[in-house]
């Protein structure tokens, strides 16, 4: 069967535009460009309550994103939640006595882990655990406490 050169060129263009669209979707419209290298190091922290934290929530320090939550587990002995975080290898120098708290971006925004630097010389490494943690604020508990303290004040 004879296929004209124009047809071949047009089909080539069509396939190229199709792949360009896939490339556009992956680079411009999704997080592929921000995932970067995966060989960061993993740290963990224990929380009494993680609220609405999810896997892939951001981990930040001073508002800058350092990594992502890579896993959430429940410890059946201490009844706490263990949160594993992947930190980008660029940020090697976090002090080992840094503290972690679960914060909310905006009033109704999503929850993320905020790290706060300590003063220790040693830095966090693969597998190390953050000791000082602060749980997520649960709005119902907060309102309950507020009402209770009001009652007792009267």
């Amino acid at each position, binding site marked *: 069967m004879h296929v004209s050169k124009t047809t071949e060129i047009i089909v080539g263009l069509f396939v190229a535009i*199709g792949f360009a669209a*896939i490339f*556009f979707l992956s680079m411009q419209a999704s997080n592929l460009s921000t995932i970067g290298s995966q060989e960061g190091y993993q740290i963990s922290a224990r929380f009494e309550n993680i609220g609405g934290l999810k896997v892939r929530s951001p981990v930040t320090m001073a508002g800058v994103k350092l990594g992502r939550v890579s896993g959430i587990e429940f410890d059946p002995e201490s009844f706490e939640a263990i949160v594993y975080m992947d930190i980008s290898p660029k940020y090697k120098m976090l002090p080992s006595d840094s503290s972690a708290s679960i914060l909310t971006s905006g009033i109704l925004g999503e929850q993320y882990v905020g790290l706060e630097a300590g003063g220790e010389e040693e830095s966090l490494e693969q597998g190390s655990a953050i000791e000082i943690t602060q749980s997520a604020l649960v709005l119902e508990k907060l309102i309950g406490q507020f009402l209770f303290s009001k009652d007792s004040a009267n």
Partner: protein
Amino acid sequence: MLTYFQRLGVISLAMLERLGRASVFLMRILQHIPAVLLRFRLLISQIYSVGVLSFSLILLSGLFVGMVLGLQGYYTLSDFGAAESLGVVVAASLVRELGPVVAALLFAGRAGSALTAEIGLMKATEQLSGMEMMAVDPVARIITPRFLSGVISMPLLASVFSAVGIIGGYFIGVGMLGIDEGAYWSQMQAKIDFHEDIMNGLIKSVVFGVVVTWIAVFEGYDAIPTSEGVSLATTRTVVHSAFAILIIDFILTALMFGDI
């Protein structure tokens, strides 16, 4: 009374038999795929008639669907003061659902019906039996290149649809309604996940490509070789493809995004 049950039985058996024939037919197509890949030129002319000729339709529809999403999304989101996340709404609905599904529906109407009519007419004018007389297997020479080109074209068309839709939403959101350009893209990048959203959308469109072209070539090959039979087969291609796309989309969405 019994005759009704008998009629129901006849209909069910006929449906099952047709499904069986369609499956055997798909197996025969799959067997011939390696041979077709070696004869690339057969494929190119088919990608032209199946994919390239659907391109302008997909381009225009994608643009307008994206623009409508931009408008509708804006009016709903601005009630909650969240108009900045318009980019996420437009991109998520396009990449996950509308891109693969609407592109597949358009593809079934534009390319699927054409495939059925072409193959059905070839059968009606006895070109297929003519080929068999010359010891050329029509499944290998006619059907398989068409099937393969549909499977290749569908994900490309669906991606073009989504990409153009996102750009259309950008024109409306950023250009007309004055959403911040940075917010449009950065919120999108923060919320749309490559594996979760883009890859699953691509998988959906590949599945739709297989199903729509399978239905189209089978209906053509199985058509009653009269002008009325071909017209019936063409109608069936569009109707069955639409049903199949929507049902399979529900199942795939439940598997991919629902935590079942």
